[in-house]
């Protein structure tokens, strides 16, 4: 897909200011579903002779954000596919909201791939409303549902823009809205900021922190960036190199409650980061 080489795209107001808290006290998004619990027991998976996941036990509470960190190629993306019902595991069990069948998992999880993969022939708002169209809504109806989210997440005025006219950060935001509008209780985010430059990534992390804080959904965020996981998640699971096993699990200090700069420079954060990096290194041996 071609990116636009036209005149500079105007960035909307600063990401954090862009998130409006809906009335509801603790920032719950009106209309968003409540999160579902995810239970993974003894999970194992391989492709032919290649064992990708050895034995994994994880539990995610409803509304919690779990960060999954691990070296490249360790099976993090496969883990998301397995949870989301896109693939069946060789061994072990996965339950989302108490249901174990792949169809029910598929119906409860929304998957956000690494690259935005917005359709270049659709406007931003039509891209975001894709799930609604699939469920039978008319284009006008779907747009009406999606419109308030654009305002709330700092994309006001860009509803009719084509993906080629948007910057990388904005495209990721539209992709995230697309994931949200699927209305599923579990969000599976596969390295959402891997394709962005460092500065945009920092901005987007703040944006996503505010977005997740306003949501009551469960989210499982896969990333190779330890800081990102610690800043955005409630808990972080560190996986070893392939075949993936759980090396360590730690609670994130003050997740999403501080602006990014304050959060990542706090001493508890530094301690947690060191612990996570240690676990990561141990898992790579």
């Amino acid at each position, binding site marked *: *897909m*071609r*990116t*636009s080489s036209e005149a500079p795209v105007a960035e909307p107001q600063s990401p954090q200011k862009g998130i409006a808290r809906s009335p509801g006290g603790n920032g719950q998004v009106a209309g968003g579903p409540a999160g579902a619990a995810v239970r993974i027991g003894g999970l194992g998976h391989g492709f032919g002779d290649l064992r990708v996941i050895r034995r994994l036990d994880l539990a995610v509470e409803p509304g919690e954000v779990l960060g999954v960190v691990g070296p490249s190629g360790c099976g993090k993306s496969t883990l998301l*596919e397995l949870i*989301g*019902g*896109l693939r069946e595991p060789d061994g072990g069990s996965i339950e989302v909201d108490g249901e174990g069948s792949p169809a029910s998992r*598929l*119906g409860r*999880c*929304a*998957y*956000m*791939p*690494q*690259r935005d*993969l917005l*359709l*270049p*022939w659709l406007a931003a708002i039509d891209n975001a409303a*894709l*799930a609604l*169209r*699939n*469920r039978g809504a008319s284009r006008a109806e779907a747009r009406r549902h999606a419109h308030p989210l654009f305002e709330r997440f700092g994309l006001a005025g860009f509803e009719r823009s*084509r993906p*080629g006219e948007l910057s990388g950060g904005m495209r990721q935001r539209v992709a995230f809205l*697309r994931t949200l509008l*699927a209305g*599923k209780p579990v969000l*599976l985010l596969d390295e959402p900021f891997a394709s962005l430059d460092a500065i945009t990534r920092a901005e987007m992390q703040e944006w996503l922190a505010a977005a997740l804080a306003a949501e009551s959904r469960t989210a499982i965020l896969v990333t190779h960036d330890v800081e990102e996981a610690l800043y955005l998640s409630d808990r972080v699971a560190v996986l070893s190199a392939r075949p993936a096993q759980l090396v360590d699990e730690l609670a994130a200090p003050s997740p999403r409650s501080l602006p990014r700069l304050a959060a990542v420079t706090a001493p508890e954060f530094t301690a947690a980061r060191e612990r996570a990096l240690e676990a990561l290194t141990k898992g790579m041996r």
Partner: protein
Amino acid sequence: MVRRARTIGVRRWLPPLAILCALLGAWELAARLDVLADALHIEPFLVPAPSDIAQSLWSDRSLLADNGWVTLKEVLFGFALSVAAGVGFAVALHLSPTLRRAVYPLLVASQTVPIVVVAPILVVWLGFGIGPKLAIIALICFFPITVNTLDGLGSVDPDLLKMMRTLDASRWQTLRRIEAPGALPYFFSGAKIAVAVAVIGAVFGEWAGSSSGLGHLIQAASAQLQTARTFAAVVVLSALAILLFALLAALERRVAWWGPNGTRA
């Protein structure tokens, strides 16, 4: 803004046009001086100069127009048939991998049968009407459309397909909303090739058995050693092919505007 666009257009066409004029000029000179005829040891009138061809284009214009219209009809209907068959095959083979494994090699094999052999057989089966011409055009033209469209349908990022499943898309919805639009630029690549070749297919069909059309005119004129008229008919055929190609390219720019040949990303 308009002036600038026009200047750019002129500057784009100037080099090939200049080369073409130079070649025509050299040809005209050579024909006038009987250079080519002497070299080939044949009568001068058998090697027409561009000016002779131009004159035939004018004096035979009603003949060329009538036959041109016959060939154009064959090309248009045959092309429409090949689009239907080409896209039909592509979608079927894309949706069923087993069908693809079974049928694709046969489709490739179908292209190896020489058209010169097939054409007369089709005339025997389908008669002297437009039937065999349509069959021949469809036979040679469906293939580039199928190959390109099939590639296009398979070009969708697998992550996108995974995501669509979690967005509650049925197989049909994924095909309609994601794969089909994604395949459109590829389809046009195949269609442009097909439309250029369709004209040749029409000529083969007419040579196998016809009483009208530009192919038939070429046959008749060259048999009567009317070389200028023969060349004139060829010029009209080329013009037809170029025109159809340009129309498809223009359509592509509008319809598949996000693709590599589109107006904007």
